[in-house]
């Protein structure tokens, strides 16, 4: 330890020590960017104010599951507000809110303060950087998608009279829960990250993400209005409805409230629409980061 801070010059100079320890290379680098991305997504290491939206969204997303479980335990099997199929549609609005607030935290700062050359002169490629950020935001979104569904699952099993039998009955839904959660997380994260990366400023990015989902939802509702005969188009204006359709296509089970039921189009179309959303988002990201001058 130094005896005192020295504005006057070095007092104890122990000399330069070289580093002989392990170097984790590209994987270590990606791992670091993912971890710091998740921290940024939850406002960790920041002021309390930056934690309000992400943690608030996590709590709100889990609240219906908590209530559903409580009702099941206290009252029994009489009402079922939420099940695995309609849950993510029900809390859907929280995903864009979370992503609008947090996706810019992951990418805008690095771009605005010109830190990217320092990243790209380390053992990663530009693509590694973008993928790490995508993974970070997707993992963070699992707190809003997977966590409540698992809560619902655990609650249903524990509330049953015969836990072992209930576990046997319910265990089959796990792959669907995980798959559906991942689907929502990855697609919403990709859209949010792409818009943030091209927006350049946090406020613009947040506004643009919200606008996309809000406008999409409004258009979807207008198209779905009875009497217009456009119900088949309605879900495709809203990314969350596209995701719900894809969920139904992959894992089955309709959500009564979503426009997917009324649309009555082949479900694989939702899969195509999801693929288009992903391709657009990833293409935008690739273009944007190729243009970063170092």
């Amino acid at each position: 330890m130094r005896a005192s801070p020295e504005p006057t010059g070095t007092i104890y100079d122990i000399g330069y020590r070289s580093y002989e320890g392990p170097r984790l290379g590209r994987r270590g680098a990606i791992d670091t960017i993912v971890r710091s991305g998740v921290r940024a997504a939850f406002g960790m290491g920041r002021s309390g104010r930056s934690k309000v939206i992400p943690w608030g969204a996590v709590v709100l997303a889990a609240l219906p599951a908590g209530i559903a479980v409580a009702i099941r335990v206290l009252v029994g099997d009489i009402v079922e507000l939420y099940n695995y199929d309609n849950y993510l549609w029900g809390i859907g609005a929280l995903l864009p809110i979370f992503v609008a607030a947090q996706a810019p935290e992951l990418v805008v700062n690095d771009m605005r303060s010109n830190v990217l050359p320092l990243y790209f002169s380390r053992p990663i490629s530009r693509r590694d950087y973008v993928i790490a950020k995508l993974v970070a935001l997707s993992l963070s979104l699992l707190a809003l998608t997977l966590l409540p569904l698992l809560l619902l699952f655990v609650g249903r099993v524990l509330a049953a009279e015969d836990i072992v039998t209930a576990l046997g009955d319910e265990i089959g839904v796990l792959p669907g829960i995980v798959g559906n959660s991942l689907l929502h997380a990855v697609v919403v994260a990709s859209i949010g990250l792409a818009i943030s990366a091209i927006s350049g400023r946090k406020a613009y990015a947040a506004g643009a993400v919200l606008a996309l989902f809000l406008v999409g939802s409004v258009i979807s509702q207008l198209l779905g209005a009875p009497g217009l005969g456009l119900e088949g188009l309605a879900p495709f204006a809203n990314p969350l409805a596209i995701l719900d359709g894809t969920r139904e296509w992959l894992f089955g089970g309709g959500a009564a409230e979503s426009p997917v039921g009324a649309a009555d189009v082949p479900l694989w179309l939702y899969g195509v629409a999801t693929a288009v959303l992903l391709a657009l988002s990833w293409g935008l990201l690739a273009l944007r980061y190729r243009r970063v001058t170092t």
Partner: protein
Amino acid sequence: MPLISTRALTKRYPGGVTALDGLTVDIDEGVIGLVGANGAGKSTLLKILLGLIPATDGEARVFDLDVGRDGPRIRALVGYMPEHDSLPPDVSATEFVAHMARVSGLPTSAARERTADVLRHVGLYEERYRAIGGYSTGMKQRVKLAQALVHDPRILFLDEPTNGLDPAGRDEMLSLIERIGRDFGMTVIVASHLLGEIERVADWLVAIDEGHLLRTAPLGSFTERTGQLIVETEDDAAPLAERLAADGLTARAEGRALLVELASAPPSADGNEYAVYDVVRDHAVDLGLPLVRIEHRRHRLEDLFRDRTDASAAVEGGPDASVA
């Protein structure tokens, strides 16, 4: 095997600007000054070596690895301090440098330890816990240097490291670079258009101009003594030249001065290298010609760029020359 080697390396930017034009150079260990005018291709060369931009043509190898194919492996063992501002304003130096150490592949505990070490070496103490946004330019330059050093690279690339610093800050930065080259066991490549600075820190020079290699040699050879004696007199020196010629010495006028070729002097009996000085002095006294100076002429670093009117405008010689 040289540490860095390029073969016919060419970089043309879209829009037709040719930054590097068939550059072939080998660079070995040491503190290497990469000198050239603004726009000579220094930054472009560094960025290609780092794999940040692809070359249009030719080959570049670092640690005998191809920069195009083995970029990540090379970049694990090099450090880069870019020319321009590149720090996030809202995190502390400690946080930022430790993060960059981990992105370089260091495990967390090692990253933390080395961050403390390196920040102390670059001279950041209590202020390292404050957000970088409030730092002076000098402090920011130190953070940029620290993030380039933190993973103990084998090669350190510094692009105009004294950019924007006041004279005192520049002096400290140069001392730091000298120390890194001497004590840290790293090869340091310093790109600069300020010859005075390069002269102070480098032991080897790579001079490039308009994307070509101008010369690569030890610094000493750029400033070594020429084989000429420069003789300056107050009056016309022509009679002196005649006298010297009669003695078998080759002398020609350059401006008001005479240049005497030392090689043309007969070896003196006692091996005294000043024998020629004596001959010149005696003739001058004889002719009653007032002598201003007799001096062994040296090359100057600026001579390298002197005949290149476009380049010389931007390569600045004096130690205190400011950034153009």
